[in-house]
């Protein structure tokens, strides 16, 4: 039996600018994988999709405690850096940019120590995207939530709140350790 266990699966069923997944991180695991597939927008105005974490109290953590770095890899150009210090979310974590289907985006995240209140929550992310009829891109990067606080869920949101998401499926897996 695989040590990587599916814990939760949820899909966007109507146009939303943000989507929350609650109560998936617990004391049972300290490494998690999140996959986000088929992320698309309503209409043809493309958007970035960012990440915030959800605290144990159920509130979205939007304080300026996110630190991230990433590289963009563009099919039409070279690569470039994305940097962020003391930000209120992780820019382009789920999608560099996505657009109306069939130009969907997909991503994989590995989350470390979300339920610990003695260590920062950290993540690795990769995403693959196509948008505006022309642009293929990929990203890979990392982020920290510099806050000693238990995190129990996550929040995906479009960056300007006016280009809603039409579809997307979020699966959360826990990586079991047998002692």
């Amino acid at each position: 039996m695989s040590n990587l266990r599916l814990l939760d699966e949820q899909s966007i069923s109507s146009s939303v600018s943000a989507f929350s997944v609650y109560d998936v991180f617990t004391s049972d695991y300290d490494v998690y994988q999140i996959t986000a597939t088929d992320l698309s927008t309503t209409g043809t105005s493309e958007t970035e999709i960012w990440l915030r974490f959800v605290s144990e109290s159920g509130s979205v953590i939007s304080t300026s405690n996110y630190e991230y770095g990433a590289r963009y890899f563009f099919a039409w150009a070279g690569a470039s850096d994305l940097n962020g210090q003391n930000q209120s979310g992780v820019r382009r974590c789920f999608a560099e940019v996505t657009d109306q289907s069939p130009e969907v985006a997909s991503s994989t995240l590995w989350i470390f120590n979300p339920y610990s209140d003695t260590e920062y929550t950290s993540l690795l992310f990769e995403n693959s995207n196509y948008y505006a009829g022309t642009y293929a891109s990929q990203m890979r990067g990392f982020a920290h939530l510099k806050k000693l606080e238990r995190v129990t869920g996550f929040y995906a949101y479009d960056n300007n709140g006016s280009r809603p998401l039409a579809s997307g499926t979020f699966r959360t897996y826990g990586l079991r350790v047998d002692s």
Partner: protein
Amino acid sequence: MALVQVANHTMTSAANTVTLTGITTNDPHVLFYRDVYMTSDGAVPAWRLTKASDDSANTSSNYENARMNIYSNQGKYDGANKSLTSFSAIGTGTTSSECHQGMITLMNFTDSSSYSYSIWQQIMTTETPEYVGPHGGGSLKVNEAHNGVQFFANTGNIANGRFTIYKVV
């Protein structure tokens, strides 16, 4: 993707080396490590491959790597080395808020007639602190079967860490 655990070690006291063995097939394996910090500020966690013949670390000068270190506060740094005696990370701190986590994919370990390969993605906080995400890979240029990984500190000891190897099936 299914992951089946083959080795696990949780440190209960500081040590200069941490060795995990248990790789017995040539399938890809993934080593996850987390909460690794050191007894000396700025000490670098490094790792070597262990020989299937006797579980000892290969300390020869045959480790080669290339990597892209991504930062939150500056542009990326590309690095590469030949003829080293280990793979290594970046100096880190002495507390749980200045630590390392990451995943290392281990390829072609048990084939004694060709080289072994590692691909890593890491998240770390240095002693400064800076926030860094190295992505890289390397080869151990020796025709030898390997069965695991040995972590060590370049100075002082590893103070804390949890390490698990899974086989990809």
